[in-house]
């Protein structure tokens, strides 16, 4: 059996904010009609969460769901639970026009935590984090690459990007969060 590892194998950095790669993380891209009742059932079956509103993320017992675009969601579950979640989505959406694909190994997943985590992110993303609340979700760019960020109920930020740019994203975040480089906004 292959030894499965994530892009950066759980690397961590601690500055005025802590940056860590979260290891293996399950993600499913789901496209379809987000307003249909079949979609609501599929999301509930797979994660226990509700379909998120525009630019929101919702949290359920088995995972969370993020709004990616008017016809796309990102379903986040445990790495080992993606098969089960995808099967639940496909069962509930049978007959609908939809796409569900496991993209866990195409992505990297980071957490940025600490009271000043928003300061580190503000340096490298063109996003106003002063009005960013728990459950808000935003796709944007991080320095020169695409990334999506959201705030969890505990107040930490989580971020996903493509696996191919994981090292770049980690280095940028580590530098932005280095001790002594607070901006105190």
């Amino acid at each position, binding site marked *: 059996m292959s030894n499965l590892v994530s892009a950066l194998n759980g690397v961590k950095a601690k500055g005025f904010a802590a940056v860590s790669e979260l290891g293996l993380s399950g993600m499913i891209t789901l496209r379809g009609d987000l307003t249909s009742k079949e979609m609501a059932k599929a999301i509930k079956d797979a994660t226990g969460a509700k379909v998120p509103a*525009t*630019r929101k993320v919702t949290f359920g017992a088995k995972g969370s769901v993020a709004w*990616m*675009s*008017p016809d*796309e969601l990102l379903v986040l579950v445990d790495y080992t639970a993606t098969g089960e979640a995808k099967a639940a989505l496909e069962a509930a959406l049978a007959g609908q026009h939809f796409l569900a694909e496991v993209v866990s190994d195409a992505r990297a997943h980071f957490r940025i935590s600490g009271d000043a985590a928003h300061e580190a992110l503000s340096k490298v993303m*063109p*996003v106003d984090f002063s009005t960013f609340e728990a459950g808000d979700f*935003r*796709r*944007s*760019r991080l320095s020169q690459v*695409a990334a999506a960020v959201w705030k969890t109920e505990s107040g930490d930020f989580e971020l996903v990007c493509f696996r191919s740019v994981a090292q770049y994203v980690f280095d940028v975040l580590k530098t932005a969060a280095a001790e002594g480089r607070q901006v105190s906004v």
Partner: protein
Amino acid sequence: MLVLTCPYCGVTAEETEFHAEGEAHLKRFGPGSKDEDFEAYLFMRENPKGVHLERWRHQNGCGKYFHAARCTMTLEVFGTYPAQTYEPPQEIKDKIAAKHPNWTWREFTL
């Protein structure tokens, strides 16, 4: 720097989150069309000093295409609207009319 609002996800962001995709409202002339029409479709573009209608893509966001009306001289943005429209909505025309009462653009007039 331009600040645009994506009509699909509602994000207001500066232009580095978007990508300019050329002129809006092009009518395609494909196989079987006259050579002059095909040439105009491929190559002939508006290049106004003033209000222009452009196509943009929310490249680092929701990934959708949309249209924007802006002034190429002052960089004033009159508004953005979904790509599934054949001409700019009246509210955007009203905003353009307030600054440029004689505006015309291809077949569009105020």
